[in-house]
């Protein structure tokens, strides 16, 4: 079968950008007012942001961006026309104008030289590909999680952000909530003694290869662009059940299940508690609802389904030789001893709001410091999730070599490290 005729885009990005290379049309400095020191931000000094794939979660994130006085959100891209229109209206209503531009192809949004940063809240299928393309176009990136589909993508994501010198914030907003931050601080700084075990709640451990659903009549391209929706995922016929984004090509070679969906939050917190060290080196098959992974220093990362103190969703627990702490989405934490507070009052913020995380990102866009959910940290946490999923799928132990992030003498596991992207996409 031959390929249907599809125009290979000749992007205007190159020529436009070439025009800018010699003399910047942008302000050359960031005024102190843009750092929020006096609370006012002139329109010309705002961070210009565009949104890619703004559905349910994205609309929430968008709200967090729109709250910030130093943000000018002025473009939205979505493969669904109705959603584009809805989000544009939301943004235009906020600013009282009609300036928000709409795109069906995110590359056109990335071509705009006036856009400083992008919010990527597509389905997980697109996250890494869109993020890497945005970085190569010179944009800073706030990207929802899970950010990657496999180990190889995680490495490419971190490498690309470093190479392109872009600011990347994974949508791991719990890193900017006081009680989770404090729990991780206790673990990281030795206040619990030598750290022995960190626990994450995967909420449904399962790994499987993804497939396709029966063909349905596809809508018009201008309503839903199925080809772009598939993007880097292998081709399959249109079926509207795929459109919710969940578990459609989330895990690449493997559909991620709870290990990746929740792990990109709770394993991420465990990694932070461990000082954002490289991920564990050994992953066992699950037993009695626990999947145990072991770090190079002997500490254990335990994916545990049950036996949590009821502190809300996304609980984590860190156990050291002299103390422990457990925290969850209620905003509360339980400590082995009140002494660990050392007189501090830790603010309880329940409901995992992303406002602080978005603020952290925007501050780092200005200062060029690394945000809490930076690409390196996110990549390591995601690699731990992907490796655990591979152990789950193969139902046996796998051992990861941190020198090259390959599994040791384990061809089946290594073949699950990456997955080809559908043409023409690459990262």
């Amino acid at each position, binding site marked *: 079968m031959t390929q249907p005729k599809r125009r290979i885009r000749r992007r205007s990005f190159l020529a436009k950008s070439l025009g*800018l290379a010699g003399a910047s049309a*942008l302000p050359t400095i960031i005024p102190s007012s843009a750092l929020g020191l006096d609370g006012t931000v002139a329109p010309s000094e705002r961070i210009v942001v565009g949104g890619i794939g703004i559905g349910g979660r994205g609309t929430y994130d968008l709200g967090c961006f729109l709250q910030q006085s130093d943000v000018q959100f002025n473009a939205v891209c979505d493969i669904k026309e109705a959603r584009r229109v809805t989000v544009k209206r939301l943004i235009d209503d906020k600013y009282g104008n009609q300036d928000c531009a709409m795109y069906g192809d995110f590359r056109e949004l990335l071509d705009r030289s006036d856009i400083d940063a992008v919010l990527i809240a597509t389905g997980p299928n697109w996250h890494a590909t869109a993020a890497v393309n945005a970085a190569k176009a*010179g944009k800073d990136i706030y990207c929802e999680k899970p950010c990657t589909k496999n180990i190889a993508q995680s490495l490419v994501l971190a490498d690309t952000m470093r190479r*392109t010198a872009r600011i990347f914030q994974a949508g791991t907003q719990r890193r900017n909530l006081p009680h989770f931050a404090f729990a991780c601080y206790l673990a990281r700084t030795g206040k619990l003694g030598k750290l022995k075990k960190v626990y994450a709640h995967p909420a*449904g451990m399962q790994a499987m290869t993804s497939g396709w659903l029966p063909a349905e009549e596809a809508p018009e391209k201008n309503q839903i662009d199925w080809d772009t929706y598939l993007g880097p995922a292998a*081709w399959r016929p249109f079926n509207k059940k795929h459109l919710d984004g969940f578990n459609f090509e989330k895990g690449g070679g493997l559909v991620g299940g709870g290990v990746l969906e929740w792990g990109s939050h709770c394993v991420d917190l465990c990694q932070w508690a461990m000082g954002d060290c490289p991920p564990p080196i050994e992953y066992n098959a699950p037993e009695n609802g626990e999947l145990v992974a072991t770090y190079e220093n002997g500490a254990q990362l335990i994916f545990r389904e049950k036996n949590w103190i009821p502190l809300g969703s996304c609980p984590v627990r860190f156990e050291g030789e002299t103390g422990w702490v457990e925290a969850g989405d209620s905003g509360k934490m339980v400590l082995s001893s009140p002494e660990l507070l050392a007189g501090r009052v830790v603010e309880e913020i329940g409901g995992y709001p992303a406002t602080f995380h978005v603020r952290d990102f925007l501050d780092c866009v200005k200062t060029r410091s690394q945000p809490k959910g930076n690409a390196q940290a996110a990549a390591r946490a995601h690699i731990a999730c992907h490796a655990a999923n591979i152990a789950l799928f193969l139902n046996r132990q796998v051992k990861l070599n941190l020198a090259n992030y390959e599994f040791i003498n384990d061809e089946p596991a290594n073949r699950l490290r990456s997955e080809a992207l559908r*043409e023409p996409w690459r990262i």
Partner: protein
Amino acid sequence: MRFTCFPICAAMLVLATAVSCPCVNGQVRTTTSEPELIAIMSSGDTSDEDKALACKRLAIYGSAAAVPELAKLLPDYRFASWARIALEAIPARECDEALRSATKQLDGNLLIGVVNSIGVRRDRESVETLTELLKNPTFDIASAAAVALGKIGDETAAGVLRQSLSQASVEVRSAIAEGCVLCAERILATGNRSLAIEMYDEVRNAKVPMQRIVEATRGAIIARGAEGVPVLVEQIRSPERSMFQLALQVARESQSKEVGKALLSEINSATTDRATLIVHALGDLPNTVEQQSIIDIAANAKKEVRVAAIGVLGRIGDAACVAPLLKIAMESEDLQAPVRAALVDLQDESVNGEILKRLKTAKDETQLLIEVVGLRRIEATAQLETALSSSQAAVRGAALASLGSIVPQDRLSILISQVVAPKYAEDLTAAQKALKEAAVRMPDREACAAELTIASKKAALPTRLALMEILGSVGGPTSLETVAAVAKESDPQLKDVSTRLLGEWMTIDAAPVLLDLAKRGPADKFQLRAVKGYIRIARQFVMSDQERIAMCENAMEAAKQTAEKKMVVEIFSRYPSIGMLKLAVEAAKSPALKEDANRAALTIAEKLKDNTEAQELARKAGILP
């Protein structure tokens, strides 16, 4: 313990099951046999779905033997990427050969896909093929070839890319630059620093998009090591915002003393805004600059820069910062807030000792130090108690606020005495606020409440009112007992405060107290408040069905007005049970409640549709036909 996760997560898991279920042929999902998978692929009867899934299984379990079947799919847009999933993963040179061969037959996106896979596999034998493709008139194909060469990243690929950089059309040059940067990075990793630097510099000097220049400049600085500092300084001074931003990031990446020194030296000549950002960057380079340098900036630079430096000291400073920070705060009133924040942030363990030492001999800075003591939760009760006698109201106010944060339970009397018998009347509000903050954090709540109760008995009316408010915040049985007793006193102000507190009480044990007040008191606003408080508990708090039914019965009895009775009726249908239905039927006998009660009864009967007793009762009462 059961755990409730997001609904969306549950939905996701349901879909996961749906997606993973084999629709037609279960074999393809489970087999690890390569011959079986090849047979599925080659069969004319195989469905599209099974063909695709066979590719995914071959990615894990296939070998060179599977390559011919996989390669057949490369010209088919539906299956090309499924085939490449396997061809990228199988560690056999036959895969490289198949991909290379396919470049001769394919065009458009399918060709790009194959080229991308060659790049992922880093097939060195494909350099010649890719070199040809670099000349392809379709820019996206040539661009894919350039990036693939970059991923291969050996010196041969480097040579091809370098040559192309100056010759290629403008549309392809960005991808060639990308390939060069990728290549240079690999070459640097192999130890050929000079070649890497040459490549980075060539891209920097090429007519390519600014982002490519940013990437090459970053590489050029890092590849040069210490010799890259002048290049970094050049970027610090660049009028281009993106280059300045790059410099800030590379500086952080380097963590070298030379870079720290270079940044420091640029502060004076930079604009205020840039100097501020440079200082922020220095805060991320804690081991590369002397602390004194940051202290000097905090003391002498322009205000915005000083604020940034003060913040940096808070993040990375030690006890030696305390004195200079205090000096800054005393000299510049408008910098007191950032100094206070920095003094609170300082992490070094010896900081608390230094602050206490300074507090002993402090003069003008006394208030600030006392505030910091409270914010850092430093144990300094004795010093703060002494400060309560200061002639300066601001110092006394700070001492009270900080005592609220730190006073231990056995010294709570310090704050109680400040509330009961303040030396300075103007301190009363601050003292009450401090006592409340302290009281609610006391580890032994009952002992705290008992102490407050004793104090309240001796206190004048305004003080008693304030202590009642504090007891309301403390909560617990002792507080409840005290507030309940006060509610029965005759003073209207005391009755007002205590009944309001009881009406808002956060534990269920307030119910009998409220019922007692509701039954015994005259039909005044306090009685009404007690009834409403009782109904609130019946409506909102967790309890057994029997307890709630009993409370509703009591409430109906205690309520003197129809409006309150209707509030009770509203509870019936919230917690449907036989007992509630009986109450509703009984209430419906009152003409004033009939409509509401019948509606509640109907709601309950509908919710208990499988309960024959309930259905029978409803029919008998005429609620159901």
